[in-house]
């Protein structure tokens, strides 16, 4: 069973959404400056189906992005948010025997600008966007 962040990473890679940016899952190293990371976060537990007791959960994710250039970072995050908004019944293969259906990605808010992170005199702008997934294994 892959993590929701891993699954979303694979989908975004399949859609060539990262382009020249370096993307990670769950851990963002100090380099490079121009980087994206997808984290697993708190999701929503909706309850159980009366029919079979299955627990319905919507896992949460966060996409974090850093960039030396504010405008470039903001534009890239806006583009990624737009890709998230367009997800609809996408199939993601995490291996030959692990197929997922990503029904929907629902952003829980707008793009957050977190300010500047200074590492070794490099001033990097940070952006995040949060979302809830509707995900099932085929």
């Amino acid at each position, binding site marked *: 069973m892959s993590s929701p962040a891993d699954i979303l990473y694979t989908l975004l890679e399949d859609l060539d959404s990262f382009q020249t940016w370096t993307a990670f899952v*769950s*851990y*963002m190293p100090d380099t490079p400056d121009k980087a994206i990371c997808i*984290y697993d976060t*708190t999701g*929503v537990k909706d309850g159980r189906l009366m029919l079979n007791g299955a627990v319905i959960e919507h896992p949460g994710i966060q996409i974090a992005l850093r960039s030396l250039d504010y405008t470039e970072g903001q534009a890239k995050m806006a583009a990624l948010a737009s890709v998230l908004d367009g997800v609809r019944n996408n199939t993601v293969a995490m291996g030959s025997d692990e197929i997922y259906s990503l029904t929907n990605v629902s952003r829980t808010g707008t793009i957050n600008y*977190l300010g500047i992170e200074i590492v070794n005199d490099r001033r990097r702008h940070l952006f995040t966007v*949060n979302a809830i997934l509707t995900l099932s294994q085929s």
Partner: protein
Amino acid sequence: MAQLYASMQGGPTVIRNMGAVTRSMGDRVADGLRAAGLALQRASQELAPVEYGNLKASAYTRSTGRGFDTVVEVGYTASYALYVHEKVGMVLQGQARQPSPPHMGRYWDPQGRAQAKFLETPSRTMHPQMIAIIRRIANIT
């Protein structure tokens, strides 16, 4: 031809009382919302990282509007609250805060229970409890 005459007395009183009940219910719901907000604030403060306590102390629960139109907002006023809240990587967790002095303790302390999403997490996990608080105070069965 038979005719039946009837008159009703006390109509305005009944309507006025119904209005009173509705207002009372709205006020109780508002009380419940405020209590649920305070419970969320308390749970959130348990998860907020503490160094000097500025972030934790900046938590607030504010209500606007009246009755059924009450809106309760829970948040933090510290300027860096959003940054800390969204820093889900927590890569420095457990390491000593630098430079020391002036900084003290370890990142994401106290006792390693602090975390990013310190407001969003309880707002999701405490949802049933908050509903129960509102129902109890509003006396909704």
